[in-house]
């Protein structure tokens, strides 16, 4: 089912939950709503589910406006962060509850619950109460309950944030696989950018109730349209520093105290002659070299596979990833080479990208 949000707004008095959200989700697409807590992603999700009524704007399911439609008529399945299992019912009753409310005949209900439970790998736990299950199993029950009514739209509200790190990884791939196999249009709310990047076909980045960007993960990563998106997506986060870009002898130089790199003309030209702009570059695009910008190591954080190194250049700090076998120490002097084909430039006032608008 295709979902369209048009100028979708939710206000409670002066408090704005979601502010003119415009986006469309193709049939079968997996879309993630990504943003820090309080950014309006759950509010938007609950409007799609029908729990909240929009203040303004429209929600369309396959061209049909569903603003006033009751949640039960929307044929959506939802998985909650807290799982929201009914504690006094068994797993079977929990999964079967949506069917019971739809007055599905007993035998068919039995069959469908069993099939979903087997698919989720909890077919042997049907007689247990939720309290007797582990976190991962409870999560599967919640997922099963959302799937059993064969919804046209699946909604996930941070479903993995209560699981431990290992389980989160395996459930992540499992949900993604399941979604691809079933081909159900899905909206997945998360504050974890890794989850969003790995699972979603497209990511809607939100901040303060506004949609910041809506793009496939790669595009979001390589062509961030705002400073916020650039800083929020990617781990470790992008480095930012204020520079001035000038044209000299046909080359574009990005300069600040103790820092002078030549940037490619296609990027440099958009940032040149604007006074101070913000240069952004990802840690993996800065490498140690024999010559280049010199700096002093300020902090070394071992991450295992890499060391995350904070290098001070004048009064700016740049994080880079380095090989742990180099055994770099605080106070060492290093030279840095910037992969200037990957630099980003942002307007410091509007925080919009100078490259991708």
């Amino acid at each position, binding site marked *: 089912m295709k979902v369209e949000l048009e100028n979708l707004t939710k206000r409670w008095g002066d408090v704005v939950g979601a502010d003119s959200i415009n986006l469309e989700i193709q049939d079968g697409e997996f879309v993630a709503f990504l943003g820090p807590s309080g950014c309006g992603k759950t509010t938007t999700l*609950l409007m799609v*589910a*029908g*729990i909240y009524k929009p203040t303004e704007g429209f929600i369309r399911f396959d061209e049909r406006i569903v603003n006033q439609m009751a*949640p*039960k008529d*929307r044929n*959506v*399945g*939802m998985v*909650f*962060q*807290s*799982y*929201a*299992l*009914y*504690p*006094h019912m068994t797993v079977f009753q929990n999964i079967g*509850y*949506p069917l019971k*409310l*739809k007055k599905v005949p007993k035998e068919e209900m039995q069959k469908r619950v069993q099939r979903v439970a087997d698919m989720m790998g909890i077919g042997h736990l049907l007689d247990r*109460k*939720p*309290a*007797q*299950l582990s*976190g991962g199993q*409870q999560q599967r029950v919640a997922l099963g*309950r959302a799937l059993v*009514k064969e919804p046209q739209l699946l909604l996930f509200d941070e479903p993995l944030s*209560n699981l431990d790190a290992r389980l989160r990884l395996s459930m992540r791939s499992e949900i993604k696989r399941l979604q691809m196999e079933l081909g159900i249009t899905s909206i997945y709310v998360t504050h974890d950018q890794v989850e969003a990047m790995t699972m979603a076909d497209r990511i809607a980045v939100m901040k303060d109730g506004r949609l910041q960007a809506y793009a496939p993960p790669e595009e979001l990563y390589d062509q961030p349209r705002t400073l916020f998106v650039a800083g929020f997506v990617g781990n470790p986060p992008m480095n930012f520093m204020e520079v001035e870009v000038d044209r000299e002898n046909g080359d574009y130089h990005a300069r600040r105290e103790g820092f002078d790199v030549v940037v490619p003309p296609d990027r440099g030209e958009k940032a040149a002659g604007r006074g101070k702009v913000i240069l952004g570059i990802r840690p993996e695009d800065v490498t140690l070299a024999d010559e280049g910008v010199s700096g002093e190591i300020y902090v070394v954080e071992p991450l295992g596979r890499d060391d995350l190194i904070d290098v001070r250049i004048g009064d700016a700090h740049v994080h880079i990833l380095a090989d742990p076998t180099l055994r770099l120490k605080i106070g060492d002097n290093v030279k840095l080479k910037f992969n200037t084909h990957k630099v980003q430039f942002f307007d410091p006032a509007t925080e919009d990208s100078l490259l991708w608008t």
Partner: protein
Amino acid sequence: MSARRQNLLGRLFVYGVLILIAAIWTTPTVGLLVSSFRPGDDVVASGWWTVFRDPTEANLSLDNYRIVLGTVGDNPQLQEKIQRGQENINLFGAVLNSITVTVPATVIPILIAAFAAYGFAWIQFPGRRIFFIGVVALLVVPLQIALIPILKDYIALDLSGTFLGIWLAHTGFGLPLAVYLLYNYISSLPRDLFESAFIDGASHFTIFTRLILPLSLPALASFAIFQFLWVWNDLLVALVFLGANPQVEVLTQRLLGMLGTFGTDWHLLTAGAFVSMVFPLVVFFGLQRYFVRGLLAGSVKG
């Protein structure tokens, strides 16, 4: 002195104090219990503790209970005792009346209050806050204030002296506390549960009967015990709204009557008091298991 020994002494002290308090609290009750098994003449002649000197000499029997429950039969000895002006002290009818009054007067307010509490907690409607504050404010109004106006209305409506009248009276007096207690509990249930049920297609009524009631059992049970004990032990409301009609008289009224008629018959009064205690105890132990914590365990995580 080692720390362990000190610890032991401390515990002995605590236990000692606890036992002492328990003993002081229990002694009068034990005295009443013993008296209820003794013949009337003995009760007047000597203290109940004398029984423990020589239990075989004490003439303990169930006669007092037979008399107050009206199960004397044709035992001539007992009938003779009753001859001394002790007819019509049959508590049996009064027990039935008390049950007839108490059970609906407990169930009706719980039903109404649960609906109201759900509405206040989870349904948006204009004036919700004002109404709720009004209900809570009624908690501080003493019921004595309402007795006379309500009695006047009851007489006009012909409800005075009827069971329906006293059910409604107890319901009204019990509702503010019930709504308040249940509201606190129901509003603390996790929001996700309701949202999930809504999406699954449940109506407010289904949510109420299938989710709220089962999940609120601990709160319902504790209020049920409060209300049951209050109604069962109530004398004032019964006196005002039921009146002195022996047909509908409840236990507390009948006990009071016994005191008035036979001011000295302690042996019968004590037996009657223990008969009246049986039912609250049954209710308490029956509902006690619902106080088990963790009924919500496994519902939501985090």
